């Protein structure tokens, strides 16, 4: 049961991540319908998984997944507490709604090329940022989220798009540099990057 819980905690990250990897291969053939359906299936699949996670959380309390069973201050841990379970369920619901809306609103050229894998990667980064129990891992998930949002913003190579993406990218790069600096300083003071400690 402990193993099941570990996989359950990881599932909101693993499903969109593996799906994004498969969608990259699908986008090579540039078939819109296949990509749309697969992306939709991934978004729908996340809803029962996160609800199952919420149910297990209400039964057992805080669920922890330790990577390769290393004890807490040394290994990388994923923690599902009340806030992260709530946020992950919200992400699954909003993500499904956005995915359905995007079927009609996003232009055919964007969908054919790389919209769907990038969207799933964005969801994976978001879920990872909510579920991680390690400050540096939070930074890494944040960067995954940011890089996919950068590409989603500048997809299409429009004049206005590039101008908007440029200021968004540069401001975010400064901000994430300062986030990294704060992480390093916190590590220097506390000696650990684990969030629960």
């Amino acid at each position, binding site marked *: 049961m402990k193993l099941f819980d570990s996989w359950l905690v990881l599932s909101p990250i693993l499903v969109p991540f593996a799906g994004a990897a498969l969608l990259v291969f699908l986008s090579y053939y540039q078939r819109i319908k296949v990509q749309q359906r697969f992306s939709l299936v991934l978004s729908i699949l996340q809803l029962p998984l996160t609800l199952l996670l919420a149910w297990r959380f209400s039964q057992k309390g805080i669920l922890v997944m330790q990577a390769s069973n290393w004890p807490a201050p040394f290994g990388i841990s994923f923690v599902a507490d009340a806030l992260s379970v709530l946020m992950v369920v919200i992400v699954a619901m909003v993500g499904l709604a956005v995915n359905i809306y995007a079927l009609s609103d996003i232009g055919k050229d964007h969908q054919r090329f790389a919209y769907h894998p990038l969207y799933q990667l964005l969801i994976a980064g978001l879920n990872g940022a909510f579920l991680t129990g390690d400050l*540096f891992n939070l930074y*890494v998930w944040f*960067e995954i989220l940011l*890089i996919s949002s*950068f*590409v989603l913003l*500048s997809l299409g*190579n*429009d*004049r*206005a798009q*590039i*101008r*908007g*993406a*440029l200021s968004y*990218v*540069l401001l975010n*790069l*400064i901000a*994430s*540099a300062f986030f*990294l*600096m704060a*992480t*390093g*300083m916190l*590590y*220097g003071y506390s000696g650990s990057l684990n969030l629960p400690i």
Partner: protein
Amino acid sequence: MESLLSITVGLLFASAIYLMLRRNLIKFIFGLSLLSNAINLLIFSLGRLSQGLPPIVPEEDKIIHGKVIVDFANPLPQALILTAIVISFGFTAFALVLLYRNYRQRDTLNTEKLKASPLEEVYLCHQGSGGQG
């Protein structure tokens, strides 16, 4: 050693911020990569510097050459820095490509000449192509 590193970090920060305040976007990118290098050095010095010590000592190897090893080098900051270097490399590459696209479309790298807001830009685009945009 710590003081030398902190002076280096301070100098790198100062030059990074000087470069980022220029009006040239290429200089901004250079400033950004200097800033990430400064932060890497900062993390390195925050993880306690040590010289000539092994990073991980197994329990049975604690006695080497008749001496008991009680101290060991901290391997974690180097792992953090390696990750940060890879991420900043990827971001710098992406920002350079974006800059090049912007340069191809507008023939300028000066931030003063990029002043039009994105909304205004959309409006101008629609005007220019007869509402097709």
